[in-house]
């Protein structure tokens, strides 16, 4: 059972996506586990062949418990066949392929309703975004004459309560252990807004970019200039991270939030980052997060601009050492060259760990963030 955050102590295996004898490749999703953060897809980190599955679906085990044994790549068949999959129709419907056991995006409410009705969501044709199975798809599906008896999934109320407890535990630990300091600055983003308007007017709607992409990229690049803000504090020492794995705080429609990582955010082009954000947010809200995304954020950014918030001072998610907060872009009076003008402005904040950095270095980060946003075309 992988650790999907410093606050996780156990998880429940919901289902296996592989069976003994299957060849698996690094990055392949092999199981789904239920945690306080919701349902997480567990990836494998080595190539090989599944030797044995050690934990039965429905079993709750502590972090660190072996879930399966794997034979190394040397044991793989000389010409491995494609991983076995369930039978699917020869020509998939518009909503995508269907078939029992198939990996499928399912909204949390639809998953809950499907469990209540004894319906396997992977057998349904999803009509939602990206072929996701929606509540309507579940309600329209024929109910099995005799529902199977799968392990009882956590009911939504239990899941929400567990997530609230996990958030409370992490934030309490943060406030108890981390001496926060807080900085804020206002950034004139008129160049960024104008650049986005021009860009978005010239591309199809599906390629439009939201301000979050360049704002997050500027955060990631700014962190490269102030590495004391990017890493983890463990065993009494700071461990800087060479990579910027940007944790993105994403609110869930049913309440709560998670902060999975976009890996190497500083190296992604703006279009790549925008696509990664859309993909991540869609999957998270569809109830599908990957284990690698939760395990290793090196910093977090929280963006409450959509809620009309002017500025947000975040609570650091341990063992990270900083969180960047972004508010809403609003027209505000701005003094430039001795004149007062109305300009689009965003308030950016930094909450950081005084055990690792001080306000001077934090200020350097916010200064870099502001500077980087003045040339959005170079991000």
């Amino acid at each position, binding site marked *: 059972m992988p650790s999907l955050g410093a606050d996780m102590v156990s998880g429940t295996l919901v289902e296996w996506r592989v069976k003994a004898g299957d060849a698996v490749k690094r990055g392949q999703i092999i199981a789904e586990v239920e945690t306080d953060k919701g349902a997480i897809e567990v990836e494998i980190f080595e190539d090989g062949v599944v030797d044995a599955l050690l934990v039965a679906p429905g079993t709750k085990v502590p972090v660190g418990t072996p879930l399966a044994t794997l034979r190394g790549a040397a044991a793989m068949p000389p010409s491995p066949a494609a991983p076995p999959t369930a039978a699917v129709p020869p020509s998939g419907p518009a909503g995508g392929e269907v078939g029992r056991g198939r990996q499928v995006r399912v*909204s949390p*409410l*639809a998953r809950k309703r499907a469990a209540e009705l004894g319906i396997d969501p992977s057998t349904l044709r999803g*009509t*939602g*975004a990206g072929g*996701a199975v*929606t*509540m*309507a798809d579940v309600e329209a599906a024929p109910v099995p004459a005799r529902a199977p008896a799968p392990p009882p999934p956590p009911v939504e109320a239990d899941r929400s309560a567990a997530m609230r407890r996990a958030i409370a535990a992490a934030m309490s630990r943060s406030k108890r252990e981390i001496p926060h300091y807080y900085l804020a600055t206002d950034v004139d983003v008129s160049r960024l807004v104008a650049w986005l*308007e021009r860009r*978005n*007017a010239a591309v*199809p*709607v*599906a390629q*439009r970019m*939201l*301000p*979050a992409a360049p704002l997050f990229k500027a955060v990631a690049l700014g962190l490269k200039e102030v590495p004391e803000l990017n890493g983890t504090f463990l065993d009494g020492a700071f461990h800087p991270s060479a990579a910027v794995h940007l944790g993105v705080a994403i*609110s869930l*429609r*049913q309440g709560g939030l998670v902060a999975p990582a976009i890996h190497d955010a500083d190296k992604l082009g703006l279009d790549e980052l925008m696509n990664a*954000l*859309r993909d991540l*947010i*869609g999957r998270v*809200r569809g109830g599908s997060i990957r284990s690698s995304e939760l395990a290793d954020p090196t910093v977090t950014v929280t963006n409450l*601009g*959509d809620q009309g918030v002017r500025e947000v001072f975040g609570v650091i998610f341990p063992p990270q050492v900083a969180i960047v907060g972004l508010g809403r872009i609003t027209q505000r009076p701005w003094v430039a060259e001795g004149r007062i003008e109305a300009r689009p402005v965003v308030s950016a904040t930094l909450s950081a760990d005084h055990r690792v950095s001080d306000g001077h270095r934090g200020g350097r980060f916010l200064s870099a963030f502001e500077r980087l946003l003045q040339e959005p075309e170079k991000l």
Partner: protein
Amino acid sequence: MSPDAVKDQVLQALMEIAPEADPSGIDPTQPLRDQLDIDSFDYLNFMIGLDRRLGVTIPEADYASVSTLDYLVAYLAKRIPA
């Protein structure tokens, strides 16, 4: 396409991004995003869905004029390709 048919397509596109929403509970005279707690990423997906379903691209500059269900349906009904 009749306004009712347009409205039906709009609601189906909405359900793709907010599957838990109750269409009958939407006040057509009040901003959709506020009622359904739709953020900018979900709203962009909504615009993409409308473009795909109805063949109408709504420029960002027009977002403010399609904030309610009534305004949006009227806007789309005028622009749907024959």
